Protein backbone atom coordinates (compact mmCIF):
# COMPACT_ATOMS: atom_id res chain seq x y z
CA UNK A 1 0.00 0.00 0.00
CA UNK A 2 1.37 3.44 -0.88
CA UNK A 3 1.33 6.17 1.78
CA UNK A 4 -1.10 9.05 1.43
CA UNK A 5 0.73 12.26 0.48
CA UNK A 6 -2.18 14.56 1.31
CA UNK A 7 -5.03 14.92 3.77
CA UNK A 8 -8.26 12.96 3.39
CA UNK A 9 -10.05 15.91 1.70
CA UNK A 10 -7.56 15.93 -1.14
CA UNK A 11 -7.41 12.15 -1.33
CA UNK A 12 -11.19 12.16 -1.72
CA UNK A 13 -10.93 14.68 -4.55
CA UNK A 14 -8.36 12.47 -6.29
CA UNK A 15 -10.47 9.38 -5.77
CA UNK A 16 -13.54 11.05 -7.30
CA UNK A 17 -11.59 12.45 -10.24
CA UNK A 18 -10.16 9.01 -10.98
CA UNK A 19 -13.69 7.79 -11.64
CA UNK A 20 -13.97 10.09 -14.67
CA UNK A 21 -13.64 8.41 -18.06
CA UNK A 22 -10.12 8.71 -19.42
CA UNK A 23 -8.58 9.52 -16.05
CA UNK A 24 -6.59 6.85 -14.26
CA UNK A 25 -5.32 7.25 -10.70
CA UNK A 26 -2.13 8.93 -11.88
CA UNK A 27 -3.76 11.48 -14.14
CA UNK A 28 -6.42 12.09 -11.47
CA UNK A 29 -3.63 12.98 -9.05
CA UNK A 30 -2.18 15.40 -11.62
CA UNK A 31 -5.59 16.92 -12.30
CA UNK A 32 -6.28 17.38 -8.58
CA UNK A 33 -2.96 19.08 -8.03
CA UNK A 34 -3.59 21.32 -11.01
CA UNK A 35 -7.01 22.31 -9.67
CA UNK A 36 -5.65 23.05 -6.24
CA UNK A 37 -2.77 25.10 -7.54
CA UNK A 38 -5.10 27.09 -9.81
CA UNK A 39 -7.68 27.53 -7.10
CA UNK A 40 -9.04 30.92 -8.18
CA UNK A 41 -8.81 30.49 -11.93
CA UNK A 42 -10.06 26.90 -12.03
CA UNK A 43 -11.23 25.22 -8.85
CA UNK A 44 -13.65 27.95 -7.75
CA UNK A 45 -15.32 28.48 -11.14
CA UNK A 46 -15.47 24.72 -11.68
CA UNK A 47 -17.18 24.23 -8.35
CA UNK A 48 -19.68 26.94 -9.23
CA UNK A 49 -20.32 25.44 -12.66
CA UNK A 50 -20.88 22.06 -11.08
CA UNK A 51 -23.29 23.44 -8.51
CA UNK A 52 -25.31 25.06 -11.26
CA UNK A 53 -25.25 21.78 -13.19
CA UNK A 54 -26.48 19.87 -10.15
CA UNK A 55 -29.37 22.31 -9.78
CA UNK A 56 -30.39 22.61 -13.38
CA UNK A 57 -29.63 19.40 -15.22
CA UNK A 58 -32.73 17.45 -16.13
CA UNK A 59 -33.52 14.54 -18.39
CA UNK A 60 -35.69 15.65 -21.29
CA UNK A 61 -39.12 14.07 -20.85
CA UNK A 62 -39.53 13.77 -24.63
CA UNK A 63 -36.29 12.34 -25.90
CA UNK A 64 -34.20 11.34 -22.88
CA UNK A 65 -31.35 13.77 -23.62
CA UNK A 66 -29.76 15.61 -20.70
CA UNK A 67 -29.94 19.40 -20.66
CA UNK A 68 -30.87 22.29 -18.42
CA UNK A 69 -34.35 22.66 -19.84
CA UNK A 70 -37.22 20.28 -20.40
CA UNK A 71 -37.95 19.88 -23.30
CA UNK A 72 -34.26 20.03 -24.19
CA UNK A 73 -32.64 22.49 -26.59
CA UNK A 74 -32.87 20.01 -29.45
CA UNK A 75 -36.53 19.13 -28.86
CA UNK A 76 -37.49 22.82 -28.69
CA UNK A 77 -35.50 23.78 -31.78
CA UNK A 78 -38.23 24.74 -34.27
CA UNK A 79 -35.86 24.56 -37.25
CA UNK A 80 -35.44 20.81 -36.89
CA UNK A 81 -37.52 18.44 -38.96
CA UNK A 82 -40.23 17.27 -36.54
CA UNK A 83 -41.05 14.25 -38.69
CA UNK A 84 -37.64 12.62 -38.51
CA UNK A 85 -36.51 10.77 -35.38
CA UNK A 86 -33.04 9.36 -34.79
CA UNK A 87 -33.00 6.52 -32.24
CA UNK A 88 -29.78 6.19 -30.22
CA UNK A 89 -28.69 3.95 -27.36
CA UNK A 90 -27.50 6.65 -25.02
CA UNK A 91 -26.81 10.36 -24.70
CA UNK A 92 -23.15 9.91 -25.68
CA UNK A 93 -24.29 8.65 -29.10
CA UNK A 94 -26.68 11.58 -29.45
CA UNK A 95 -23.86 13.99 -28.75
CA UNK A 96 -21.55 12.17 -31.17
CA UNK A 97 -24.13 12.52 -33.95
CA UNK A 98 -24.68 16.18 -33.12
CA UNK A 99 -20.93 16.75 -33.32
CA UNK A 100 -20.95 15.23 -36.79
CA UNK A 101 -23.70 17.74 -37.54
CA UNK A 102 -25.21 15.89 -40.48
CA UNK A 103 -28.74 15.54 -39.21
CA UNK A 104 -31.40 18.15 -38.78
CA UNK A 105 -33.69 15.85 -36.86
CA UNK A 106 -34.81 15.09 -33.33
CA UNK A 107 -33.64 12.18 -31.21
CA UNK A 108 -34.92 9.43 -29.03
CA UNK A 109 -32.61 7.99 -26.38
CA UNK A 110 -33.36 4.34 -25.57
CA UNK A 111 -31.28 4.14 -22.42
CA UNK A 112 -29.42 1.00 -23.48
CA UNK A 113 -30.01 -2.11 -25.56
CA UNK A 114 -31.88 -5.36 -25.11
CA UNK A 115 -29.49 -7.73 -23.43
CA UNK A 116 -30.62 -10.98 -21.85
CA UNK A 117 -27.14 -11.52 -20.48
CA UNK A 118 -27.26 -8.21 -18.63
CA UNK A 119 -30.90 -8.59 -17.62
CA UNK A 120 -32.06 -5.63 -19.72
CA UNK A 121 -35.50 -6.16 -21.28
CA UNK A 122 -37.95 -4.07 -23.34
CA UNK A 123 -39.49 -2.55 -20.22
CA UNK A 124 -36.13 -1.19 -19.12
CA UNK A 125 -35.81 0.85 -22.32
CA UNK A 126 -37.94 3.71 -23.60
CA UNK A 127 -39.37 1.67 -26.47
CA UNK A 128 -43.05 2.16 -25.58
CA UNK A 129 -42.42 5.88 -25.35
CA UNK A 130 -40.83 5.77 -28.80
CA UNK A 131 -43.83 4.05 -30.35
CA UNK A 132 -46.15 6.57 -28.70
CA UNK A 133 -44.05 9.47 -29.92
CA UNK A 134 -44.01 8.19 -33.46
CA UNK A 135 -47.81 8.06 -33.64
CA UNK A 136 -48.47 11.22 -31.61
CA UNK A 137 -45.98 13.45 -33.48
CA UNK A 138 -46.79 12.06 -36.95
CA UNK A 139 -43.19 10.98 -37.44
CA UNK A 140 -42.58 9.75 -40.98
CA UNK A 141 -39.00 8.53 -40.74
CA UNK A 142 -37.16 6.71 -37.96
CA UNK A 143 -33.39 6.20 -38.27
CA UNK A 144 -32.07 3.48 -35.98
CA UNK A 145 -28.59 4.74 -35.12
CA UNK A 146 -27.77 1.90 -32.74
CA UNK A 147 -24.37 0.28 -32.45
CA UNK A 148 -23.35 -2.58 -34.73
CA UNK A 149 -23.21 -5.02 -31.82
CA UNK A 150 -25.38 -8.11 -31.39
CA UNK A 151 -27.40 -6.26 -28.73
CA UNK A 152 -27.72 -3.11 -30.82
CA UNK A 153 -28.91 -4.98 -33.89
CA UNK A 154 -31.30 -7.15 -31.87
CA UNK A 155 -32.79 -3.96 -30.44
CA UNK A 156 -33.08 -2.45 -33.92
CA UNK A 157 -34.92 -5.54 -35.14
CA UNK A 158 -37.24 -5.46 -32.13
CA UNK A 159 -38.08 -1.79 -32.63
CA UNK A 160 -38.71 -2.30 -36.35
CA UNK A 161 -41.18 -5.00 -35.40
CA UNK A 162 -42.94 -2.72 -32.91
CA UNK A 163 -43.23 0.07 -35.51
CA UNK A 164 -44.46 -2.28 -38.23
CA UNK A 165 -48.11 -1.17 -38.09
CA UNK A 166 -47.39 2.55 -38.30
CA UNK A 167 -47.01 4.69 -41.44
CA UNK A 168 -43.32 5.33 -40.87
CA UNK A 169 -40.18 4.58 -42.84
CA UNK A 170 -37.58 2.78 -40.74
CA UNK A 171 -33.93 2.73 -41.76
CA UNK A 172 -30.66 1.93 -40.03
CA UNK A 173 -27.08 3.05 -40.34
CA UNK A 174 -25.30 1.09 -43.01
CA UNK A 175 -21.77 1.58 -44.22
CA UNK A 176 -18.81 2.53 -42.19
CA UNK A 177 -19.99 1.25 -38.84
CA UNK A 178 -17.80 -1.80 -38.28
CA UNK A 179 -19.25 -4.90 -36.65
CA UNK A 180 -18.94 -4.45 -32.94
CA UNK A 181 -18.41 -0.73 -33.54
CA UNK A 182 -19.51 1.80 -30.99
CA UNK A 183 -20.88 5.05 -32.38
CA UNK A 184 -19.32 7.16 -29.69
CA UNK A 185 -15.85 6.15 -30.84
CA UNK A 186 -16.30 6.74 -34.54
CA UNK A 187 -14.84 9.78 -36.18
CA UNK A 188 -17.17 12.35 -37.64
CA UNK A 189 -16.43 11.48 -41.26
CA UNK A 190 -17.34 7.82 -40.75
CA UNK A 191 -20.51 8.84 -38.95
CA UNK A 192 -21.72 11.13 -41.68
CA UNK A 193 -20.98 8.45 -44.31
CA UNK A 194 -23.00 6.00 -42.25
CA UNK A 195 -25.91 8.38 -42.07
CA UNK A 196 -25.91 9.24 -45.76
CA UNK A 197 -25.97 5.57 -46.71
CA UNK A 198 -28.63 4.39 -44.29
CA UNK A 199 -30.69 1.49 -45.57
CA UNK A 200 -34.25 0.35 -45.02
CA UNK A 201 -34.35 -2.33 -42.35
Amino acid at each position, binding site marked *: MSRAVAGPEIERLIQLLSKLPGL*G*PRSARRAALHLIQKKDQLLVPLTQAMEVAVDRVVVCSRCGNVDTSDPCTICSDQRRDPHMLVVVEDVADLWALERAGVLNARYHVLGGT*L*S*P*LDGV*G*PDDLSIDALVERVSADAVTEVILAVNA*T*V*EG*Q*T*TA*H*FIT*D*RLAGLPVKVSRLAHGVP*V*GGELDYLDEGTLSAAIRSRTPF
Partner: protein
Amino acid sequence: MTLHDSQLGRETGAAEALWLSALGLANFRNYERLSLALDRRPVVLTGPNGAGKTNLLEAVSFLSPGRGLRRARLADVARRGGDGSWAVTATLGGAGDDVAIGTGIALGPEGPEATRQLRLNRTPAESTQALLEHLRVVWLTPAMDGLFTGPASDRRRFLDRLVLAVDPRHGERVNAFERAMRGRNRLLADHTADRSWLTAIEAQMAEHGVAVAAARRECVALLAGAIAETQPDGPFPAARLALEGTLETALDGAPASGVEDRYRGALATGRGADRAAGRTLDGPHLSDLAVVHAPKAMEAASCSTGEQKALLIGIVLAHARLVARLSGRTPIVLLDEVAAHLDPERRAALFAILVGLGCQAWMTGTEPAPFTALGDAAQHFAVPEDL
Protein backbone atom coordinates in the same frame (compact mmCIF):
# COMPACT_ATOMS: atom_id res chain seq x y z
CA MET B 1 0.38 -1.42 -45.77
CA THR B 2 -1.80 -3.85 -43.87
CA LEU B 3 -2.65 -7.41 -44.78
CA HIS B 4 -6.21 -6.40 -45.68
CA ASP B 5 -4.87 -4.25 -48.48
CA SER B 6 -2.69 -6.96 -49.88
CA GLN B 7 -5.09 -9.88 -49.87
CA LEU B 8 -6.33 -9.55 -53.41
CA GLY B 9 -4.44 -10.80 -56.40
CA ARG B 10 -1.95 -12.76 -54.34
CA GLU B 11 -3.18 -16.22 -55.21
CA THR B 12 -0.02 -17.20 -56.99
CA GLY B 13 2.48 -14.45 -56.17
CA ALA B 14 5.32 -15.25 -53.82
CA ALA B 15 4.74 -14.10 -50.25
CA GLU B 16 7.12 -11.60 -48.70
CA ALA B 17 9.18 -13.01 -45.88
CA LEU B 18 8.27 -11.85 -42.39
CA TRP B 19 10.07 -12.87 -39.22
CA LEU B 20 10.63 -11.91 -35.61
CA SER B 21 13.91 -10.02 -35.38
CA ALA B 22 13.68 -9.72 -31.60
CA LEU B 23 11.67 -11.34 -28.85
CA GLY B 24 11.46 -10.08 -25.28
CA LEU B 25 9.76 -11.58 -22.24
CA ALA B 26 9.03 -10.14 -18.81
CA ASN B 27 7.57 -12.27 -16.04
CA PHE B 28 6.36 -14.78 -18.58
CA ARG B 29 6.05 -18.34 -17.15
CA ASN B 30 9.53 -19.37 -15.97
CA TYR B 31 11.21 -16.31 -17.54
CA GLU B 32 11.72 -13.30 -15.34
CA ARG B 33 13.32 -11.40 -18.17
CA LEU B 34 14.62 -12.46 -21.57
CA SER B 35 15.69 -10.75 -24.71
CA LEU B 36 16.56 -12.64 -27.84
CA ALA B 37 17.95 -11.27 -31.11
CA LEU B 38 16.91 -13.27 -34.16
CA ASP B 39 17.35 -13.37 -37.88
CA ARG B 40 14.97 -14.63 -40.52
CA ARG B 41 15.95 -18.31 -40.39
CA PRO B 42 13.99 -21.06 -38.60
CA VAL B 43 14.60 -21.21 -34.84
CA VAL B 44 15.60 -24.45 -33.15
CA LEU B 45 15.27 -24.69 -29.37
CA THR B 46 16.76 -27.71 -27.64
CA GLY B 47 17.15 -28.50 -23.96
CA PRO B 48 16.03 -30.80 -21.18
CA ASN B 49 12.44 -31.27 -20.02
CA GLY B 50 11.21 -28.25 -18.14
CA ALA B 51 13.87 -25.94 -19.57
CA GLY B 52 11.33 -23.48 -20.98
CA LYS B 53 11.12 -24.37 -24.69
CA THR B 54 7.35 -24.63 -24.97
CA ASN B 55 7.01 -21.47 -22.89
CA LEU B 56 8.95 -19.59 -25.56
CA LEU B 57 6.64 -20.90 -28.28
CA GLU B 58 3.66 -19.97 -26.15
CA ALA B 59 5.05 -16.44 -25.86
CA VAL B 60 5.26 -16.19 -29.65
CA SER B 61 1.70 -17.54 -29.95
CA PHE B 62 0.50 -14.48 -28.02
CA LEU B 63 1.45 -12.45 -31.08
CA SER B 64 -1.93 -13.57 -32.42
CA PRO B 65 -5.34 -12.86 -30.85
CA GLY B 66 -6.71 -15.32 -28.31
CA ARG B 67 -5.34 -17.29 -25.43
CA GLY B 68 -2.17 -18.67 -26.97
CA LEU B 69 -1.18 -22.22 -27.85
CA ARG B 70 -1.93 -23.61 -24.40
CA ARG B 71 -5.32 -21.87 -24.25
CA ALA B 72 -4.19 -20.81 -20.81
CA ARG B 73 -5.96 -18.50 -18.43
CA LEU B 74 -4.08 -15.21 -18.71
CA ALA B 75 -3.33 -15.21 -14.99
CA ASP B 76 -1.57 -18.60 -15.21
CA VAL B 77 0.89 -17.20 -17.71
CA ALA B 78 2.31 -14.73 -15.21
CA ARG B 79 5.49 -15.93 -13.55
CA ARG B 80 4.88 -17.53 -10.17
CA GLY B 81 6.27 -15.25 -7.53
CA GLY B 82 5.91 -12.18 -9.78
CA ASP B 83 3.38 -9.36 -9.40
CA GLY B 84 0.82 -10.93 -11.76
CA SER B 85 1.72 -8.80 -14.78
CA TRP B 86 3.50 -10.19 -17.82
CA ALA B 87 4.67 -8.98 -21.20
CA VAL B 88 5.81 -10.28 -24.55
CA THR B 89 7.50 -7.86 -26.92
CA ALA B 90 8.61 -8.50 -30.47
CA THR B 91 10.03 -6.62 -33.40
CA LEU B 92 9.11 -7.72 -36.89
CA GLY B 93 11.64 -7.96 -39.66
CA GLY B 94 11.13 -8.18 -43.41
CA ALA B 95 7.62 -7.39 -44.61
CA GLY B 96 6.78 -6.43 -41.01
CA ASP B 97 9.08 -3.46 -41.51
CA ASP B 98 10.26 -2.95 -37.95
CA VAL B 99 6.83 -3.00 -36.34
CA ALA B 100 7.24 -3.16 -32.56
CA ILE B 101 4.64 -5.21 -30.75
CA GLY B 102 4.02 -5.31 -27.03
CA THR B 103 1.32 -7.41 -25.42
CA GLY B 104 0.46 -8.76 -22.00
CA ILE B 105 -1.24 -8.07 -18.75
CA ALA B 106 -0.54 -4.73 -17.13
CA LEU B 107 -0.55 -4.02 -13.43
CA GLY B 108 -3.49 -1.75 -12.56
CA PRO B 109 -4.17 0.03 -9.27
CA GLU B 110 -6.17 -3.00 -8.09
CA GLY B 111 -3.72 -5.65 -9.26
CA PRO B 112 -3.26 -7.31 -12.64
CA GLU B 113 -5.78 -6.23 -15.24
CA ALA B 114 -8.27 -8.69 -16.70
CA THR B 115 -7.71 -8.19 -20.41
CA ARG B 116 -4.65 -8.54 -22.54
CA GLN B 117 -3.35 -5.23 -23.83
CA LEU B 118 -1.72 -4.65 -27.17
CA ARG B 119 0.61 -1.87 -28.19
CA LEU B 120 1.77 -1.38 -31.75
CA ASN B 121 4.78 0.87 -32.17
CA ARG B 122 4.20 2.09 -28.61
CA THR B 123 0.62 3.14 -29.31
CA PRO B 124 -2.23 1.27 -27.62
CA ALA B 125 -4.40 -0.74 -30.02
CA GLU B 126 -8.08 -1.21 -29.40
CA SER B 127 -7.95 -5.00 -29.43
CA THR B 128 -5.52 -7.86 -30.03
CA GLN B 129 -7.45 -8.39 -33.27
CA ALA B 130 -5.15 -5.72 -34.74
CA LEU B 131 -2.24 -8.19 -34.60
CA LEU B 132 -3.68 -9.93 -37.65
CA GLU B 133 -2.97 -6.83 -39.71
CA HIS B 134 0.74 -7.43 -39.19
CA LEU B 135 1.43 -11.11 -38.80
CA ARG B 136 -0.14 -14.55 -38.61
CA VAL B 137 1.01 -17.28 -36.28
CA VAL B 138 0.06 -20.95 -36.75
CA TRP B 139 1.02 -23.87 -34.54
CA LEU B 140 1.08 -27.57 -33.89
CA THR B 141 1.58 -28.89 -30.36
CA PRO B 142 1.55 -32.32 -28.71
CA ALA B 143 -1.75 -31.34 -27.08
CA MET B 144 -3.30 -31.56 -30.56
CA ASP B 145 -2.27 -35.21 -30.97
CA GLY B 146 -5.72 -36.50 -30.01
CA LEU B 147 -7.50 -34.10 -32.34
CA PHE B 148 -9.05 -36.73 -34.60
CA THR B 149 -10.21 -39.02 -31.81
CA GLY B 150 -11.23 -36.31 -29.34
CA PRO B 151 -14.45 -34.31 -29.08
CA ALA B 152 -15.85 -32.38 -32.05
CA SER B 153 -15.42 -29.14 -30.11
CA ASP B 154 -11.62 -29.50 -30.37
CA ARG B 155 -11.77 -29.93 -34.14
CA ARG B 156 -14.20 -27.04 -34.43
CA ARG B 157 -11.80 -24.80 -32.49
CA PHE B 158 -8.90 -26.00 -34.63
CA LEU B 159 -10.92 -25.24 -37.74
CA ASP B 160 -11.94 -21.77 -36.54
CA ARG B 161 -8.27 -20.98 -35.86
CA LEU B 162 -7.42 -22.04 -39.39
CA VAL B 163 -10.18 -19.76 -40.69
CA LEU B 164 -9.07 -16.87 -38.50
CA ALA B 165 -5.57 -16.98 -39.97
CA VAL B 166 -6.91 -16.58 -43.51
CA ASP B 167 -9.87 -14.36 -42.60
CA PRO B 168 -9.29 -12.01 -39.65
CA ARG B 169 -12.99 -11.11 -39.32
CA HIS B 170 -13.87 -14.68 -38.40
CA GLY B 171 -13.30 -14.21 -34.67
CA GLU B 172 -15.80 -11.37 -34.53
CA ARG B 173 -18.40 -13.48 -36.32
CA VAL B 174 -17.98 -16.46 -34.01
CA ASN B 175 -18.15 -14.21 -30.96
CA ALA B 176 -21.25 -12.43 -32.24
CA PHE B 177 -23.00 -15.73 -32.95
CA GLU B 178 -22.15 -17.15 -29.54
CA ARG B 179 -23.20 -14.00 -27.77
CA ALA B 180 -26.56 -14.01 -29.52
CA MET B 181 -26.99 -17.73 -28.79
CA ARG B 182 -26.21 -17.30 -25.10
CA GLY B 183 -28.72 -14.46 -24.97
CA ARG B 184 -31.39 -16.62 -26.56
CA ASN B 185 -30.67 -19.52 -24.21
CA ARG B 186 -31.10 -17.14 -21.30
CA LEU B 187 -34.37 -15.79 -22.71
CA LEU B 188 -35.72 -19.30 -23.17
CA ALA B 189 -34.80 -20.22 -19.62
CA ASP B 190 -36.70 -17.18 -18.32
CA HIS B 191 -40.03 -18.41 -19.75
CA THR B 192 -41.42 -14.87 -19.63
CA ALA B 193 -39.59 -13.99 -22.81
CA ASP B 194 -41.19 -11.64 -25.28
CA ARG B 195 -41.65 -13.44 -28.61
CA SER B 196 -40.58 -10.57 -30.78
CA TRP B 197 -37.43 -10.28 -28.67
CA LEU B 198 -36.72 -13.94 -29.41
CA THR B 199 -37.39 -13.33 -33.09
CA ALA B 200 -35.00 -10.37 -33.08
CA ILE B 201 -32.21 -12.30 -31.39
CA GLU B 202 -32.74 -15.31 -33.66
CA ALA B 203 -32.32 -13.01 -36.65
CA GLN B 204 -28.90 -12.08 -35.25
CA MET B 205 -28.02 -15.75 -34.69
CA ALA B 206 -29.00 -16.58 -38.26
CA GLU B 207 -27.07 -13.68 -39.76
CA HIS B 208 -23.85 -14.39 -37.88
CA GLY B 209 -24.27 -18.18 -37.89
CA VAL B 210 -24.54 -18.35 -41.66
CA ALA B 211 -21.54 -16.03 -41.99
CA VAL B 212 -19.54 -18.37 -39.74
CA ALA B 213 -20.55 -21.41 -41.78
CA ALA B 214 -19.78 -19.69 -45.08
CA ALA B 215 -16.33 -18.60 -43.93
CA ARG B 216 -15.53 -22.13 -42.77
CA ARG B 217 -16.63 -23.56 -46.08
CA GLU B 218 -14.52 -21.14 -48.02
CA CYS B 219 -11.46 -21.83 -45.87
CA VAL B 220 -11.87 -25.60 -46.15
CA ALA B 221 -12.22 -25.33 -49.93
CA LEU B 222 -9.06 -23.24 -50.17
CA LEU B 223 -7.21 -25.58 -47.86
CA ALA B 224 -8.31 -28.59 -49.89
CA GLY B 225 -6.88 -26.81 -52.91
CA ALA B 226 -3.56 -26.24 -51.17
CA ILE B 227 -3.43 -29.88 -50.05
CA ALA B 228 -4.17 -31.02 -53.60
CA GLU B 229 -1.01 -29.28 -54.81
CA THR B 230 1.16 -31.63 -52.77
CA GLN B 231 2.06 -35.20 -53.59
CA PRO B 232 -0.84 -37.27 -52.16
CA ASP B 233 1.36 -40.13 -50.94
CA GLY B 234 4.34 -37.99 -49.95
CA PRO B 235 5.85 -37.92 -46.45
CA PHE B 236 2.78 -36.15 -45.15
CA PRO B 237 -0.27 -37.87 -46.59
CA ALA B 238 -2.99 -35.78 -48.19
CA ALA B 239 -6.03 -35.23 -46.03
CA ARG B 240 -9.53 -35.11 -47.44
CA LEU B 241 -11.54 -32.56 -45.49
CA ALA B 242 -15.30 -32.42 -45.07
CA LEU B 243 -17.38 -30.03 -43.01
CA GLU B 244 -20.23 -31.58 -41.10
CA GLY B 245 -22.87 -29.15 -39.92
CA THR B 246 -26.42 -28.27 -40.86
CA LEU B 247 -25.65 -24.76 -42.07
CA GLU B 248 -22.40 -25.73 -43.82
CA THR B 249 -24.22 -28.53 -45.65
CA ALA B 250 -27.21 -26.37 -46.49
CA LEU B 251 -24.89 -23.85 -48.16
CA ASP B 252 -23.96 -26.53 -50.71
CA GLY B 253 -27.34 -26.23 -52.38
CA ALA B 254 -28.72 -22.82 -51.52
CA PRO B 255 -27.67 -19.17 -51.41
CA ALA B 256 -26.72 -17.73 -48.02
CA SER B 257 -29.90 -15.66 -47.76
CA GLY B 258 -32.05 -18.76 -48.19
CA VAL B 259 -30.07 -20.67 -45.58
CA GLU B 260 -30.39 -17.73 -43.22
CA ASP B 261 -34.18 -17.67 -43.59
CA ARG B 262 -34.41 -21.41 -43.06
CA TYR B 263 -32.20 -21.35 -39.97
CA ARG B 264 -34.27 -18.50 -38.52
CA GLY B 265 -37.37 -20.59 -39.10
CA ALA B 266 -35.77 -23.66 -37.53
CA LEU B 267 -34.82 -21.66 -34.45
CA ALA B 268 -38.37 -20.33 -34.09
CA THR B 269 -39.92 -23.80 -34.32
CA GLY B 270 -37.22 -25.28 -32.11
CA ARG B 271 -37.86 -22.99 -29.12
CA GLY B 272 -39.75 -25.61 -27.12
CA ALA B 273 -37.15 -28.32 -27.65
CA ASP B 274 -34.27 -25.93 -26.99
CA ARG B 275 -35.91 -24.68 -23.80
CA ALA B 276 -36.36 -28.26 -22.60
CA ALA B 277 -32.77 -29.14 -23.47
CA GLY B 278 -31.39 -25.98 -21.92
CA ARG B 279 -29.29 -25.28 -25.02
CA THR B 280 -29.57 -24.63 -28.74
CA LEU B 281 -29.80 -27.95 -30.56
CA ASP B 282 -29.02 -26.77 -34.07
CA GLY B 283 -26.36 -24.45 -35.41
CA PRO B 284 -22.73 -23.86 -36.35
CA HIS B 285 -21.68 -24.30 -32.71
CA LEU B 286 -22.13 -28.05 -33.28
CA SER B 287 -20.27 -28.45 -36.57
CA ASP B 288 -17.38 -30.86 -37.03
CA LEU B 289 -14.43 -31.22 -39.36
CA ALA B 290 -14.19 -34.74 -40.77
CA VAL B 291 -10.72 -35.76 -41.95
CA VAL B 292 -9.88 -38.75 -44.11
CA HIS B 293 -6.40 -40.13 -44.90
CA ALA B 294 -6.79 -39.79 -48.66
CA PRO B 295 -4.26 -42.36 -49.99
CA LYS B 296 -5.68 -45.03 -47.68
CA ALA B 297 -9.27 -43.80 -47.84
CA MET B 298 -9.36 -44.27 -44.08
CA GLU B 299 -11.04 -41.91 -41.61
CA ALA B 300 -8.36 -40.19 -39.53
CA ALA B 301 -9.67 -41.50 -36.21
CA SER B 302 -8.93 -45.06 -37.38
CA CYS B 303 -5.38 -44.31 -38.55
CA SER B 304 -2.28 -45.20 -36.54
CA THR B 305 -0.84 -42.64 -34.12
CA GLY B 306 2.01 -41.84 -36.49
CA GLU B 307 -0.31 -41.58 -39.47
CA GLN B 308 -2.56 -39.18 -37.57
CA LYS B 309 0.42 -37.01 -36.70
CA ALA B 310 1.63 -37.02 -40.30
CA LEU B 311 -1.86 -36.05 -41.49
CA LEU B 312 -2.00 -33.20 -39.02
CA ILE B 313 1.45 -31.94 -40.05
CA GLY B 314 0.32 -32.06 -43.67
CA ILE B 315 -2.75 -29.95 -42.87
CA VAL B 316 -0.76 -27.40 -40.86
CA LEU B 317 1.89 -27.06 -43.59
CA ALA B 318 -0.72 -26.67 -46.32
CA HIS B 319 -2.43 -24.09 -44.14
CA ALA B 320 0.83 -22.19 -43.66
CA ARG B 321 1.26 -22.08 -47.42
CA LEU B 322 -2.32 -20.87 -47.86
CA VAL B 323 -1.87 -18.14 -45.25
CA ALA B 324 1.31 -16.99 -46.97
CA ARG B 325 -0.45 -16.79 -50.29
CA LEU B 326 -3.57 -15.04 -49.06
CA SER B 327 -1.93 -12.60 -46.68
CA GLY B 328 1.11 -11.99 -48.85
CA ARG B 329 3.44 -12.64 -45.92
CA THR B 330 4.91 -15.82 -44.53
CA PRO B 331 3.34 -16.86 -41.23
CA ILE B 332 5.34 -17.71 -38.12
CA VAL B 333 5.00 -21.49 -37.67
CA LEU B 334 5.34 -23.02 -34.19
CA LEU B 335 6.07 -26.76 -34.10
CA ASP B 336 6.39 -28.04 -30.56
CA GLU B 337 8.08 -31.47 -30.30
CA VAL B 338 7.29 -32.26 -33.90
CA ALA B 339 10.63 -32.94 -35.58
CA ALA B 340 12.03 -35.28 -32.96
CA HIS B 341 9.17 -37.71 -33.30
CA LEU B 342 9.48 -38.16 -37.04
CA ASP B 343 11.59 -40.81 -38.77
CA PRO B 344 14.73 -39.34 -40.42
CA GLU B 345 13.20 -39.31 -43.89
CA ARG B 346 10.05 -37.45 -42.84
CA ARG B 347 12.13 -35.12 -40.71
CA ALA B 348 14.28 -34.21 -43.71
CA ALA B 349 11.11 -33.69 -45.74
CA LEU B 350 9.71 -31.39 -43.05
CA PHE B 351 12.89 -29.29 -42.97
CA ALA B 352 12.90 -29.03 -46.75
CA ILE B 353 9.27 -27.86 -46.80
CA LEU B 354 9.85 -25.28 -44.05
CA VAL B 355 12.95 -23.88 -45.72
CA GLY B 356 11.04 -23.84 -49.01
CA LEU B 357 8.18 -21.90 -47.44
CA GLY B 358 10.70 -19.34 -46.31
CA CYS B 359 8.96 -18.93 -42.99
CA GLN B 360 10.48 -18.55 -39.56
CA ALA B 361 9.50 -21.91 -38.09
CA TRP B 362 10.11 -22.41 -34.37
CA MET B 363 10.93 -26.02 -33.48
CA THR B 364 11.67 -27.67 -30.16
CA GLY B 365 13.23 -30.92 -29.03
CA THR B 366 15.15 -32.34 -26.11
CA GLU B 367 18.16 -33.35 -28.27
CA PRO B 368 20.12 -31.26 -30.78
CA ALA B 369 20.95 -34.30 -32.94
CA PRO B 370 17.72 -34.45 -34.97
CA PHE B 371 18.30 -30.84 -36.04
CA THR B 372 21.94 -31.02 -37.07
CA ALA B 373 20.88 -31.67 -40.67
CA LEU B 374 19.50 -28.13 -40.75
CA GLY B 375 22.98 -26.73 -40.15
CA ASP B 376 23.27 -23.05 -40.99
CA ALA B 377 19.80 -23.03 -42.52
CA ALA B 378 18.52 -22.50 -38.98
CA GLN B 379 19.53 -20.62 -35.82
CA HIS B 380 20.07 -23.01 -32.92
CA PHE B 381 19.65 -22.20 -29.24
CA ALA B 382 20.35 -24.44 -26.29
CA VAL B 383 17.74 -23.71 -23.62
CA PRO B 384 18.47 -22.23 -21.15
CA GLU B 385 22.25 -21.74 -21.73
CA ASP B 386 22.13 -19.75 -24.98
CA LEU B 387 19.28 -17.45 -23.97
